[in-house]
């Protein structure tokens, strides 16, 4: 296991890139939505750094996973909460690690069950190798090239730290 690493510099880079991207797309009041659990921690940090006024949403994608019959239920995760109408709004979806792309596929499906957003941007702290679906992040803290047996894990909520673990 690697030494825990502070993510503050990555969050600052993400906030700057996201601010520039929103300005470029002329998006004034985006809705930010974090994916439970790690994505919510990252979203909380970005939400405060960008001084967004709308409340922060969170998604529990358990009911939209594609591996339900293989891994079963995880009822301990907090329910989804989208305390706003998503119809015609610009959404910034936030997760901690973009790996296979399956979590994002599930999250997009869930968001669309709440309404039809005008657009969705994806921001992830880490984008790592190992894609299984055509999903790319718009804003990335850092890109990591990892082998199949390596896992990057975010611990939190305070302090937010990254570690890289190896299968033994």
């Amino acid at each position: 296991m690697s030494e825990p690493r502070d993510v503050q510099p990555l969050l600052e880079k993400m906030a700057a890139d996201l601010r520039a991207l929103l300005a470029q797309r002329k998006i004034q009041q985006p809705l930010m939505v974090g994916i439970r659990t790690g994505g919510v921690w990252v979203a909380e940090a970005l939400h405060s750094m960008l001084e967004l006024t709308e409340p922060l949403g969170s998604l529990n994608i358990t009911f939209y996973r594609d591996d339900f019959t293989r891994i079963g239920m995880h009822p301990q995760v907090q329910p989804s909460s989208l305390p706003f109408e998503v119809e015609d709004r610009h959404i910034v979806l936030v997760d901690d690690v973009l790996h296979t792309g399956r979590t994002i596929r599930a999250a997009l499906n869930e968001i669309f069950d709440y309404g039809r957003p005008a657009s969705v941007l994806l921001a992830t702290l880490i984008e790592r190798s190992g894609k299984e679906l055509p999903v790319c992040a718009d804003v990335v803290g850092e890109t990591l090239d990892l082998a199949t047996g390596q896992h990057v894990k975010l611990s939190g909520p305070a302090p937010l730290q990254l570690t890289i673990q190896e299968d033994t």
Partner: protein
Amino acid sequence: MTPRHVQLDGEGRLRHFITTEGLSRQILTEILDTAENFATVGSQKIKKVPLLRGNTIVNLFFEPSTRTRTTFELAAKRLSADVLNLNINTSSASKGESLLDMLRNLEAMGSDMFVVRHNQSGAAQFIAEHVAPHISIINAGDGSHAHPTQAMLDMFTIRRHKPDFTRLRVAIIGDIMHSRVARSQIHALNILGVPEIRVVGPQTLIPQHAAHLGVHIHHSLETGLKDVDVVMMLRLQRERMEGALLPSAEEYFARFGLTQAKLALAAPDAIVMHPGPINRGVEIDSSVADGAQSVILEQVTNGIAVRMAVMSLVLGRGPRSEEAAP
């Protein structure tokens, strides 16, 4: 074979849901927590999640029911399962087909779950013991034995108003003797740690052995209601009067009907529950049923989330190596 063995798999997970009796507090809490997650689905624009897509759920109702069948059907549909509704008294039973033959046919159609209601106690367990190993059974009421999903939606409703079960006084009022709802409620309340459970009703409608269930027996509504936090009414079946267990609906209402005046004896923030359908003016006065302390319609809404939770916990246990098809 005890119910405990039938409804749990080799790893102690719920594979059928026949009764609340004998289950652990952990399993009941898991059902309530999962239902809390599903409750948010009802607030989505598209009130559906893809969890049980491709699963086939058969509502096997040997006894008429509107509300229970409808909420099971809605729960299954909100999980994206395919649903078949069979009302047996109107189909194969009248053609002389045996129950086991009918089950084999439904298995052959690729069913994953049977939701069973029957007027005979033990019917759901009998079916659970005789179906193919990949099929799960949910008991939607069997005779006077059990109605576990009703009890769990009641626990869910109580927890939303009174989060700490270990500080509650609960009164169950009415025909305890014939009530599968009351039996399942008493087991669930005991398992969740409720310190004081009262059963209230006339002597003819409270079983002699009730005290063995860990309840206090009251034959007066006034003493039974004193300072309780939760009032759980039961439906009074008309046929009890024909069976001479009760004099008349009017006299029953005078002694055991819940009115505002009697409800005032309970704790000021007590909630009033009823599994429905209600007999206005028999076990409950309209002003109470529709009053500020009534949570009767919340129970109906919660029933959908709780049934979604039970269905997905039972069908979503992850790898099932120990139950490989024969």
